[in-house]
């Protein structure tokens, strides 16, 4: 018998199944049990659920507890994933979201029975409007990308309303992939604009692609190089002069709270990522929440329902004839809103400003302390994140991928890698404000150590991770896709 290895491959829940075992049984039926055949024709019924597992409760708990130990979260350690804002997720927010008054609330209950929920949503809309300098906010979009889609549809609706549809949306080459994807989904054609040599957009390059068929410029500020788009005012003035809108991807709002308002920069639409800036957990890939803020002129197009307040009573208003409709059923990811609301109330105005300020200090500190070790393509004061490349290490055959995997050996989650696309071998580091100076120092030391290893013993880096789970063959998964378990025989 071999010694225990916590990193061994784990059986699937299906492989633990034994005929006749049961986790949690349903409660006794207190009405006469009825055969499905008695009310439903046999041709509509199934005889079994093939392969579905039968496992006892202790086995279930142990299986998923073991799996959880193979997962790295913010609670495990430093998670400097650029543009993802992996800040600490306050525990009290989880407690609050589990209050029965929120958890057990049905979305179609009469309005008078959900005044608390509507109040919370109404106030959260107001808070987000204040933080961003927007006039109106909808909380409906389920995540950032759906928020982008929502914002772009309101722009499209505006132009159609005036009988002059426009077909182009300009997207910088540093943009997140969701920006051009949302642009296409909304029926626009994405046109790329180059980032200037100083790492920001300039009016001149914008003028090369902007025309009267351009509905919007969709930018991210600070951009994905972590740099503030400092020509934003003249850029948005020009876009407005050409009859277009300025959309800002709010993924990087954690740099701006209490420091600058997007509304003051001429931004007309922004989506918020509550699962980034406002501390709600990412859940291993969701749920998120992607509210959208707009200037008054776009308000009539926001999705329904809108939440109204009159004499301390809250109502849902579906009567919005110019609305783009609905992006999903019901009102959005409510429990995520509860956590974001709690975060804002706990932080207050000064707390939010301090969060952004410290996030900026942490990022600049990493940038300054690592810039002699790693190539820094744009050397100026950054905002909440900074971008390095593997140019110095690649001469020893060590790539960004290797460096990322070696960081795992040192106990850190890797940064965002190979993004933004305009930086070859990019490493995008976003520390957030919730990492202590000591943790940041440890990360810097690890990065320096990896550079030393790259020069002196590159194989150590190229073979990383060397502890725990070894490097995983992602290309192999594509060559022969196995996307489900198919029984203990074939396995694939």
């Amino acid at each position, binding site marked *: 018998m071999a010694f225990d290895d916590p990193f061994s491959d784990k059986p699937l829940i299906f492989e633990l199944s034994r005929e006749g075992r049961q986790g949690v049984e349903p409660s006794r039926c207190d009405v006469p049990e009825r055969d499905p055949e008695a009310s439903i024709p046999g041709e509509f019924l199934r005889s079994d659920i093939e392969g579905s597992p039968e496992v006892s409760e202790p086995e279930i708990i142990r299986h998923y507890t073991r799996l959880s130990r193979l997962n790295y979260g913010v609670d495990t350690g430093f998670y400097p994933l650029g543009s993802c804002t992996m800040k600490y997720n306050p525990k009290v927010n989880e407690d609050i979201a589990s209050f029965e008054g929120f958890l057990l*609330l049905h979305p179609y209950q*009469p309005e008078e029975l959900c005044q608390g929920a509507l109040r919370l949503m109404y106030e959260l809309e107001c808070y987000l409007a204040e933080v961003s300098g927007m006039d109106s906010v909808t909380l409906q979009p389920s995540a950032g990308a759906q928020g982008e889609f929502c914002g772009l549809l309101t722009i499209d609706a505006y132009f159609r309303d005036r009988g002059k549809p426009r077909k182009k949306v300009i997207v910088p080459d540093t943009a997140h992939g969701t920006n051009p994807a949302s642009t296409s989904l909304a029926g626009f054609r994405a046109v790329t604009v180059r980032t200037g040599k100083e790492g920001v957009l300039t009016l001149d390059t914008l003028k090369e692609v902007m025309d009267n068929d351009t509905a919007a410029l969709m930018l991210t500020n600070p951009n994905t190089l972590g740099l503030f788009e400092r020509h934003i005012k003249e850029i948005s003035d020009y876009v407005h002069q050409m009859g277009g809108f300025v959309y800002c991807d709010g993924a990087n709002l954690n740099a701006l709270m209490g420091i600058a308002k997007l509304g003051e920069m001429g931004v007309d639409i922004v989506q918020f990522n509550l699962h980034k800036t406002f501390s709600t957990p990412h859940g291993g890939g969701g749920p998120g929440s992607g509210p959208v803020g707009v200037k008054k002129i776009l308000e009539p197009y926001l999705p329904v329902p809108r939440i109204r307040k009159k004499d301390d009573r809250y109502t849902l208003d579906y009567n919005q004839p110019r609305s783009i409709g609905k992006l999903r059923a019901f009102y959005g990811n409510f429990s995520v809103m509860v956590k974001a609301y709690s975060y804002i109330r706990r932080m207050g*105005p000064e*707390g939010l400003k301090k969060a952004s300020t410290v996030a900026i200090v942490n990022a600049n500190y990493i940038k300054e302390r690592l810039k002699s070790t790693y190539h820094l393509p744009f050397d100026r004061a950054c905002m909440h994140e900074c971008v390095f490349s593997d140019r110095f290490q690649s001469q020893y055959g060590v790539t960004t991928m290797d460096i990322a995997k070696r960081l795992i050996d040192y106990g850190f989650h890797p940064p965002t890698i190979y993004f933004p696309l305009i930086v070859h071998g990019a490493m995008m580091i976003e520390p957030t404000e919730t990492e202590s100076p000591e943790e940041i120092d440890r990360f810097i030391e690890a990065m320096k150590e990896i550079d030393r290893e790259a020069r002196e013993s590159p194989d150590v880096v190229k073979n990383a991770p060397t502890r725990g789970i070894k490097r995983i063959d992602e290309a192999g998964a594509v060559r022969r896709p196995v996307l489900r378990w198919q029984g203990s025989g074939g396995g694939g």
Partner: protein
Amino acid sequence: MSYIPHTEADLQRMLRDIGVGSVEELLRDVPPDVRVKEPLDLPHPLSEQGLLSLLRQISSENSTAGDYATFLGAGAYNHYIPSPVRHIVGRSEFYTSYTPYQPEISQGILQSIFEYQTLICQLTAMDVANASLYDGASAVAEAVIMAGRITGRKRVVLSSAIHPEYRQTVRTYLRGGDKEIVEVFYCTEKGTTLADAVERVCGDEPACLVVQSPNFFGCIEDLASLAEVIHSRGGLFVVVVSEPLSLAILKPPGECGADIAVGEGQSFGNPLNFGGPYLGFMATRSEFVRQMPGRLVGRTTDRDGKTRYCLTLATREQHIRRDRATSNICTNEGLCALTAVVYLACLGRRGLRKLARINLSKAEYLKERLISTDILEPGFTSPTFNEFTMKVKKVTPERLLSVLLDKGIIGGLALRRFYPELKDHILVSVTEMNSREDMERYATGVLQAV
């Protein structure tokens, strides 16, 4: 500020190491005219204790399924959630992680999602399922777009017995495209979508027919006959499921000719939560996998040859394909998918089938009790699962529901708001959470409404 470790001395030391005298120097790229001059106009900060008491107060301004006997469904179902679900999903190694881009430290979420994909395939009898979409409504929209991509056709045929908010979502998603949406009206007697009605509207080149079963009225659709019609015209058959517990006993979409099965997975362990977060699921046939939206987890190996899992077939996705991606989705509902996995593992094959039978038995019981009042009668003749439509006689549905509400019962949903022609009808849902006693109270309450 308790979430930010830095003391003033820490910040001064860091600024010194950066080589600046103040934070202001780091902000020199931010033009003065866009800077915030006054503090944000937000409420002053609360202590943790103060926050808890404020939010407890706000939550108490809601009344819930804890306070009322509720018979509301319509796409959001009040089911019992086994205790292990909360304990596993509450493990912060899961819930504080990001999308698993780095598989070596994300095997927990990756293997769970692989199990989830398998469970969805088993329940729907389809070949392949993705890692989740936002919710049932947006999943339908994604399915319609996918069908258009596969067939290269424009006409989308929607049954009018699909959840009204799902249909509205499809319309919103298709605003930017060149698709043409036609609705096929439900049969007013049976409450289902009829094959000959589909034939009349689907035209020569339909991209897809979309049908929900059990549909919004709770009626079970004759999927196989509808599949035949749309397949004979070369279109795809999209089946929508908003109450996935029904899959435990009803013939799965994959055995009824479905090309794409989508729906809402909320019933599998996700609380009502005022409408979200929920769990959009999507499954399809193997041949269409590269046209699927969303993340997919696949099996592979590590350098030691051990079985591992990672995100795969990413060239479909926005971060690679950008404006030509199959969808713009990035963040999905990973934790809700994990919730569903643990829920399904807890109930197991037998438990799930038993629970479905309990739901059916209770729904039939209440239906009969309500019919016996002679104030309600079935709205349609088709068989139902745990939700059904009733026609209210002698009194308006609004009056009936308000009398019930006074007795602590949320009696269902008046359908007038979505179907003006069903102004006398209500939609009633029954789950294992509704006791016999509640149902007796419901029936008694109905008698008192007249």
